[in-house]
């Protein structure tokens, strides 16, 4: 727990403590306030219902965030078990077993850890020799059972445990998920197919292994350090030496697992110290390397050594058995590439002896997992809080409304209290004691309700939404509840404090006699003084921090509002509020338009909330203080129906007279509608049609598949094991056309355009420094529809762009949108790419950037000729020199069945396929699940708005009981009274809906323009009118349901009692 997290509980306790002490010294006042609380239990209950909403929203967001964090943390514990850190080679490189030995014998590390275990993790295609079912890519995990037992045992499905010891060289344990996929049982034989060596000397081997155990999918059996945490892992566990022998890697390992002292949960805590110790123990380790490298190609000018990080001292090189002159070659110590100034003798050999070190990475995997969980909790809670802020602010407005109404009801007695000698501060204190009671009870109940709402949200997510295919547990931390209570209490009490201050300023005589405050009384100087202070403060802040986005957005609004308040005394209420609200609205709109494009701003969430509130409330005030003539015209029209005229007139006159209070009610409703409209617009923007998305992601192709080897011609692909041509019925009959894409990787993409404005990505940018290289030909784009976000003007059509890329001798390339955005590359820019040897290419010209939605195949698209010339070289690792295929199917063939058939037919080359439509469906499902979660949460805001109107109606009935008596005495029927209340509240709701919808759409459009449209692609701005209408209709219905009872009660008030009612 951080110190900053204790501020809220401390402040809450401070307030309560202060009030208790104040109460001890002012017992009568305290008693008065507390007794006022329970004098009308029904009224108090209604007020509490209104006051607790803010707390419950805060609490619900915390419960949801806690549950998500708990889910990820538990998943982390469950999968990693005792594994706290993992040591591996950079970019997946293997390293010597002696590194494990060094770590195992390190005394300081031994004191910090209770388990260190070496692993060799490789990948292979697996086929069941009986069922012929196969999996194209499975982790083969070699481990030493004796050493690995420090990490606990494997679980069998009968609940028993085994260490995995006693397996033979060709025996293996497999996890349940893999067994199910292959249809495998104990004693079944599986064939592993994998490649050995480097391009072009790769060989494919097949080995049969026997399944000796099926492991339960829990704990150790789920975890493979090469794939990290996965929802569904396919793992084969074998003896370490067996895997080393199979993959021809004697004495080599790929990972070292480390378990800190302590259990599964508390072990992660010591990760930082352990990590430092591992780095310290391994950083100076040097190894001797020697090797003989054959010269395969005519005019070959370089060789690559097996290890990077070569020490320049002690390096020796021989060419065809003769010592090489150091001036005849250049050694790149970092990459291990030796470049010769003269071509080598074809068929000769190079031998080298050197000292090298390994690039070792240490990952605190468990700690990272927990931090990711916390990060996600923060992210989800922040999102929910942003959305919920509008409902919380609506709740604050409701609190102000409730307390203002309470004061109105008690106006005469407050006046009496003042008349008999109670000072203003006593009045304020009595309200504060009452508010304290309300605050404590409402916050406590709000916290409980929030837990209930959070639980309900998670239940709905688990049962009615396929939320990223997981079942969230219900979990919350006690501290979250304390925080929610504290924040809710502070908001409630703070609001009551301000309201009490306003109430305490009542005029004694007018209060006693129930006389309305005279209109246009402008004598006091408080408002101008406050205005001058606000103006000065806002101007000073603006002057001091002119570049802060937060200041740029808010301070000018403060200046505008301050100036209006300053002039209020002389220009009058309406002119002051009109000018202030109009000024704030225009400026905030301008600020959103101008500044929201700056995505780096860390306060964007606060800015989003502030700007939304300013926009909505300013427009509410603007309309409330200027709508009289319009509303009267509407009333006049509706009122032409004689029966309705008095009812409508009465219903509308109250909101038009009590502008501020009505404005608060309208604002409360408008804020909630505003947020719902915005979320609807954005969810509509990102959740689009599956067919459309499939087309976008696949460019018209239906299946995408990669293979583990170079396959230049799929129709004549050769089985590397049998050396026979693979025949595929699926390819012949199901596939109408396909394209073969060459695939490799460049470790560095350079934008040579010095003026490019690349996005600052920090460490993330370093990770994305490289790029995939895709070699294409005409089959890629003929008949397909890969959408561009931008192309060079010289090309009239997309086809011309592609044709330019694949033209013989062309140096034109097309890039995926991500590179354009991250590196500031535009059509017309020049780029260079490093190959895997670190050699930088000549410049390529970027002629087009692809659509953002094309994310199944991303990279730099160039001609096959360019790729072969620039990026292929001898001894190139085969996993970085592969092919990718995209298939179109004949009509009537099912994509899923075809994908399975292709995988089966081309299993020998390790084909692994993706059905693009399925990806599109998952993408949309995930996106819509998240939006649905947010929408569900936001619907609570709608509940606040609707319930708020219900509560306001109930209190209005109480407050206006004498008026009901008057209306009844002069001939209003019960139905007229009921309808008057209903129309009044629907008037408020309609104003709220109209303002919320209009401002929501306006600001969504601005945010779309400044932030979203820049993502590229064709994300369109579409207003989801149906959804908005649907939500609005529900809001109306709920409002009617919530207000019909109090309105009906109003109509049933006895006129005689009403006329003499004293609240």
């Amino acid at each position, binding site marked *: 727990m951080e110190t900053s997290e204790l501020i809220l509980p401390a402040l809450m306790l401070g307030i309560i403590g202060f009030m208790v002490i104040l109460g001890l010294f002012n017992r009568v006042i305290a008693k008065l306030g507390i007794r006022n609380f329970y004098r009308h239990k029904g009224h108090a209950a209604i007020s509490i219902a209104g006051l607790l909403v803010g707390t419950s929203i805060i609490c619900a967001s915390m419960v949801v965030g806690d549950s998500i964090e708990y889910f990820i943390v538990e998943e982390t514990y469950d999968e990693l078990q005792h594994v706290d850190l993992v040591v591996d080679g950079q970019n997946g490189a293997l390293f010597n077993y002696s590194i494990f030995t060094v770590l195992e014998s390190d005394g300081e590390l031994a004191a910090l850890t209770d388990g260190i275990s070496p692993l060799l993790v490789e990948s292979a295609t697996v086929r069941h020799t009986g069922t012929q079912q196969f999996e194209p890519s499975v982790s083969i995990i070699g481990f030493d059972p004796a050493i690995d037992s420090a990490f606990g045992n494997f679980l069998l499905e009968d609940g028993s445990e085994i260490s995995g010891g006693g397996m033979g060289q060709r025996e293996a344990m497999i996890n349940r998920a893999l067994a199910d996929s292959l249809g495998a049982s104990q004693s079944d034989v599986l064939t592993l197919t994998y490649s050995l060596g480097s391009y072009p000397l790769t060989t494919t081997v097949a080995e049969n292994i026997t399944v000796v155990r099926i492991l339960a999918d829990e704990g150790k059996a789920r975890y493979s350090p090469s794939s990290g945490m996965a929802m569904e892992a396919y793992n084969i566990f074998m003896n370490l030496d067996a895997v080393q022998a199979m993959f021809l890697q004697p004495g080599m390992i790929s990972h070292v697992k480390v378990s800190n002292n302590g259990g599964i949960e508390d072990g992660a805590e010591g990760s930082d110290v352990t990590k430092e110790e591992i780095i310290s123990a391994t950083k100076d380790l040097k190894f001797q390397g020697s090797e003989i490298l054959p010269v395969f190609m005519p005019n070959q000018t370089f060789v690559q050594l097996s290890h990077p990080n070569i020490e320049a001292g002690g390096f020796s090189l021989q060419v065809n058995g003769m010592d090489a002159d150091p001036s005849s070659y250049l050694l790149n110590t970092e990459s291990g590439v030796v470049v010769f100034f003269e071509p080598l003798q074809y068929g000769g050999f190079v031998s080298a002896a050197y000292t090298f070190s390994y690039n070792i990475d240490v990952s605190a995997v468990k700690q990272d997992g927990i931090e990711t969980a916390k990060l996600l909790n923060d992210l989800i809670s922040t999102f929910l809080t942003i959305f919920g802020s509008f409902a919380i602010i609506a709740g604050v407005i409701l609190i102000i409304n409730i307390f203002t109404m309470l004061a109105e009801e008690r106006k005469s007695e407050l006046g009496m209290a003042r008349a008999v000698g109670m000072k203003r501060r006593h009045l304020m204190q009595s309200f504060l004691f009452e508010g304290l009671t309300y605050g404590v009870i409402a916050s406590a109940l709000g916290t409980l309700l929030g837990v209930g709402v959070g639980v309900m949200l998670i239940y709905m997510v688990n049962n009615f939404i396929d939320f990223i295919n997981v079942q969230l547990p219900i979990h919350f931390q006690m501290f979250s509840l304390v925080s929610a209570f504290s924040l809710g209490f502070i908001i409630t009490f703070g609001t009551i404090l301000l309201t009490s201050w306003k109430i305490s300023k009542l005029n004694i005589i007018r209060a006693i006699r129930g006389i309305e405050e005279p209109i246009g009384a402008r004598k006091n100087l408080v408002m101008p003084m406050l205005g001058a202070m606000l103006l000065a403060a806002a101007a000073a802040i603006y002057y001091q921090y002119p570049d802060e986005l937060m200041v740029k957005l808010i301070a000018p609004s403060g200046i505008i509002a301050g100036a209006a308040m300053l002039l209020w005394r002389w220009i009058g209420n309406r002119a002051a509020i009109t000018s202030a609200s109009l000024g704030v609205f225009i400026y905030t709109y301008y600020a959103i338009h101008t500044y929201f494009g700056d995505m780096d701003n860390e306060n964007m969430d606060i800015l989003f909330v502030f700007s939304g509130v300013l926009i909505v409330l300013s427009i509410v005030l603007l309309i409330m203080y200027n709508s009289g003539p319009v509303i009267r015209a509407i009333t006049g029209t509706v009122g032409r129906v004689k029966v309705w005229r008095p009812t409508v007139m009465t219903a509308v006159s109250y909101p038009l007279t009590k502008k501020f209070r009505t404005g608060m009610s309208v604002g409360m409703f408008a804020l909630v509608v505003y947020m719902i409209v915005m979320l609807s617009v954005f969810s509509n923007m990102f959740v689009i049609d599956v067919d459309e998305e499939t087309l976008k992601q696949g460019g018209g192709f239906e299946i995408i598949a990669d293979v583990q080897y170079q396959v230049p011609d799929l129709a004549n692909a050769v089985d590397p094991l049998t050396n026979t041509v693979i025949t595929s019925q699926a390819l012949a009959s199901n596939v109408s056309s396909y394209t073969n894409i060459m695939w490799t990787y460049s470790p560095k993409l350079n934008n040579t355009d010095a003026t490019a404005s690349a996005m600052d990505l920090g460490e993330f940018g370093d990770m994305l420094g490289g790029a995939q290289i895709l070699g294409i030909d005409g089959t890629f784009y003929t008949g397909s529809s890969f959408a561009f976000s931008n192309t060079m003007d010289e090309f009239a059509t997309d086809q011309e762009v592609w044709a330019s890329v694949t033209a013989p001798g062309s140096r034109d390339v097309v890039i995926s949108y991500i590179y354009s955005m991250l590196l500031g590359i535009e059509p017309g820019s020049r780029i260079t790419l490093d190959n895997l040897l670190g050699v930088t290419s000549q410049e390529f010209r970027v002629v087009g950037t692809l659509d953002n939605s094309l994310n199944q195949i991303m990279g730099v698209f160039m001609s096959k000729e360019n790729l072969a010339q620039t990026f292929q070289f001898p001894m190139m690792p085969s996993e970085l020199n592969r092919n990718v295929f995209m298939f179109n199917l004949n009509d009537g063939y099912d994509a899923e069945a075809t994908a399975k058939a292709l995988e089966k037919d081309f299993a020998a080359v390790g084909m692994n396929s993706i059905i693009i439509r399925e990806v599109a469906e998952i993408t949309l499902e995930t996106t819509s699940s998240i939006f649905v979660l947010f929408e569900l949460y936001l619907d609570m805001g709608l509940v606040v708005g609707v319930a708020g109107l219900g509560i306001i109606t109930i209190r209005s009935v109480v407050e206006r009981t004498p008026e009901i008596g008057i209306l009844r005495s002069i001939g209003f029927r019960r139905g007229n009274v009921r309808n008057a209340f209903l129309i009044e509240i629907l008037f408020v709701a309609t104003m709220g809906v109209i303002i919320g919808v209009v401002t929501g759409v306006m600001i969504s459009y601005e945010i779309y323009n400044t932030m979203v449209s820049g993502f590229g692609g064709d994300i369109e701005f579409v207003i989801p009118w149906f959804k908005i209408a649907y939500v609005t209709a529900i809001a109306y219905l709920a409002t009617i349901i919530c207000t019909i009872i109090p309105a009906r009660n109003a109509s049933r008030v006895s006129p005689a*009692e009403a006329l003499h009612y004293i609240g």
Partner: protein
Amino acid sequence: MSEIMVEAKDLVKTYKTGQVEVKALRGVNLTVRKGDMIAIMGPSGCGKTTLLNILSGLDDATSGTVMIEGQDLSQMSDNQKTEHRAKRMGFIFQFYNLLPVLTAIENVEMPLLVSGSSAKEAREQAIEIMRVVGLEEVMHSKPGALSGGERQRTTIARALISKPAIIWGDELTGDLDDETANTIMDLVARLRKETQATFVIVTHNPEVGKRADKILYMRSGQFVREEKNV
């Protein structure tokens, strides 16, 4: 002998407050003829306002009957009583009981609108009656901006606009100074003469009582004395 406007027989009203029963009226009998002005006087809590509420149909008696213009109130539905109030009755209250959110003229025209008059017709009549009560200058002001006397004159205008047969007044000068109270009572007298309406007024003020044809004194929920003014 003029026709009977109000006839109450054996009116009893009992209020229950928790376990306590309070008898506000203990068998009240009353007859008011058309055009009469009756003042009901008595100490606070004697049941004057309760009687007025029951006679006007604002409240129901526990037992007994009230006949208004020959119609038994107890046999009327709530809507019928409301309609009767709108068309045949006017009310003047001590604390004016104007709707604060409506302007003076809107308050005045409201009974006509409720009775189904057109907006134009209601407004014309309201302007006329405002002129009669001397408020044409302030008729577009809201009650909060009017003096006590102006508010009470607005209430009187509202009570008279639908040309009711009977007007109920509850302490109609109770919140006014003597001079204003006299002015208001002069106005009431003038309007009574012009409209021939029946007035039943509850008051503490002997000066107001003197303006009535007859004063009925109440004590503990019963009439104890009757006094005729000549």
